[in-house]
């Protein structure tokens, strides 16, 4: 190899190293780390969270910061990979000296970061992590979302008690903990309430063809079909299900909440029910305000992950305010006790156990719009 080529390569490498050195931090700010998935196959969710979190932090700083101190956000990408998330966490803790970690977005990443935060004694709050096991890792671990078991139970109760459904089928993503967790909770509660799960089918993350599973389900002709997954997969499933002749009542989860659902489902989502945090039509000013501003800023309406990301910032802000400092012990205490936060996904009360206590709504898609059907106040967790 010629020396010129070697030199070019060397210069390229040096450039990368030089660019990668982080900028200098100011002293009078509160440093917060955000770990999210900006690249990789779950980037769409991670970018929603990133957008909402930066918007939330900008809001706080514009309003004068917290107790006079501005928030500075360090955003690190985890590629949706647990190993990378762990690296990012260590970097935030050791090199960036952040006061608190927001994120990561998906449960596998959260599960890799949580033991590190716990061992380091640094509070962390995942706005979106739903896996039941997350908060049991330690007392420094908090979340802003529902537990899978809570949401799955709510939908099962609603289906059995309010809709009077006796038979349900489930189609879920066997490779996704969110989907599996919701399916487990739904199944348990539904059977407890005397219902019967007559068929179950599964698929894997990244699949686009569900016709085999749906044809099998169609043969059993279930009264209702529970589809615990994000809008990106639920949409195509809804469309394919209807085209294959399934006319069951479709039951969904908060992951369905996206402006794109209707287009992805080809309009076949009509009549479906979901559990959600808030109802865009009737809920608070904060919610309306958030949706309007997010839409304006990013050119698309927020999905559920964006709303949760924004609320993560609100929870963090009230905890920082309540703690009065960035002392981890005080912050941890505050994160477990702050309450009455008027957030985009409704009123949030935190709990020392780590999962917020918030109400849920059941929405029904009627004429292409989400319509409030029921409001369920939290009955414990």
């Amino acid at each position, binding site marked *: 190899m010629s020396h010129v080529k070697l030199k070019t390569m060397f210069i390229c490498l040096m450039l990368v190293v030089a660019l990668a050195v982080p900028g200098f931090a100011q002293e009078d700010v509160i440093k917060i780390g955000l770990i999210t998935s900006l690249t990789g196959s779950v980037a769409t969710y991670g970018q929603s969270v990133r957008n909402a979190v930066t918007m939330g932090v900008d809001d706080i700083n514009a309003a004068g910061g917290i107790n006079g101190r501005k928030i500075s956000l360090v955003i690190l990408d985890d590629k949706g990979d*647990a190993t990378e998330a762990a690296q990012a966490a260590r970097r935030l803790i050791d090199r960036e000296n952040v006061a608190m970690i927001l994120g990561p977005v998906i449960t596998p990443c959260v599960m890799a970061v949580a033991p590190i935060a716990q061992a380091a004694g640094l509070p962390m709050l995942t706005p979106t992590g739903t896996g039941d096991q997350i908060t049991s890792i330690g007392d420094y671990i908090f979340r802003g979302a529902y537990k899978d078991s809570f949401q799955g139970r709510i939908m099962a109760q609603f289906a059995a008690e309010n809709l009077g459904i006796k038979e349900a089928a489930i189609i879920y993503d*066997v490779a996704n903990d969110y989907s599996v967790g919701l399916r487990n909770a739904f199944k348990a509660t539904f059977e407890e309430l005397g219902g019967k799960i007559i068929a179950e089918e599964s698929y894997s993350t990244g699949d686009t063809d569900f016709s085999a599973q749906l044809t099998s389900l169609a043969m059993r002709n279930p009264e209702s079909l529970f589809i615990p997954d994000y809008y990106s997969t639920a949409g195509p499933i809804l469309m394919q299900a209807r085209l294959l002749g399934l006319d069951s009542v479709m039951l969904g989860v908060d992951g369905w909440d996206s402006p794109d659902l209707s287009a992805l489902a080809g309009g076949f989502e009509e009549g479906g029910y979901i559990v959600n945090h808030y109802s865009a039509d009737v809920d608070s000013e904060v919610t309306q305000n958030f949706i309007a501003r997010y839409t304006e800023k990013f050119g698309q309406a927020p999905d559920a992950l964006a709303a949760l990301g924004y609320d993560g910032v609100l929870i963090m802000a009230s905890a920082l305010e309540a703690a009065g400092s960035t002392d981890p012990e005080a912050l941890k205490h505050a994160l477990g006790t702050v309450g009455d936060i008027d957030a985009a996904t409704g009123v949030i009360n935190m709990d020392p156990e780590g999962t917020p206590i918030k109400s849920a709504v059941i929405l029904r898609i009627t004429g292409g719009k989400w319509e409030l059907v029921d409001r369920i106040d939290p009955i414990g967790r």
Partner: protein
Amino acid sequence: MNKLSSLIKGIILLLAYLVVQLLERQGVLLPYHVQILSLCCINVILVVSLNLINGFTGQFSIGHAGFLAIGAYASAYLTVVWQAPFLFAIICGGVLAGIAGLAVGLPALRLRGDYLAIATLGFGEIIRVIILNTDAVGGARGFSGIPKYTTFGLAYLMAIFTVVVIRNFVTSDYGRACLAVREDEIAAESLGVNSTYFKVLAFTIGAFFAGTAGALFSHYLQYMAPTPNQIGFVKSIDILIMLVLGGLGSITGSIVAAITLTIIPELLRGFAEYRMIIYPILLIIVMIYRPAGLLAGNELSLSGITQFVKGARAHGNHT
């Protein structure tokens, strides 16, 4: 001379360890850095062990993460559920992965090149789907609550152990037989080399070390998720990239590449969305300029380095 150079190498390795320990105590190296160094060591084990299969024996496996998965989950199950000592768990993880390697080596007897590659890929995915469906190890929720037993020292020691064992293997009659199978199976057979045996042997040994790397990995991350980028084909391809970048058939190349490619994504992390654009461009540039890998199948050696330092012109083709 030989003894002397081994001694010097030993001293350098020991010194390197002591320097890391010292710098860590002084606070120059943060836990963040030490964690990256541990990951480097784990990746070195993975790449060097794949080198035995792909580089030295000339097979084409892209299912290495499957062996890692077996080692990672088996050892975690042992330490979490049975509270087994870590060293025992590592060995069990390695042995189980080795048995799986034996099973995968068998198709290798009939399949060649790209067909073998696809079979190994399929094998890796089968392992992943099985783990995904096994509730005892957490299924899709992942395996959490694994104790943090992997220290830098242990990972470092295991990496050295792996490198020494595999280097000794490939420079013995066994390794020469593997090389012969890679170079020309028919000639090897006619010289009395049982090519079947050596293919399976390479798969078994490579898988064993990948299994130990898996054990280190699960007790490093404290959590295993059955995702493609953790134990699936994305991970297998990551290992393959490191191997080819370092150069097939070069152990030192594998080491250099494993370390470089573990650190580069870390350096690029701040670039957010641009990171995954810069990384593949670097990869393509390196491959275009160094198609045979960074070290082009040669080994870095002490004498080579001293010669280089002395400015000897011998540097280049043979070191």
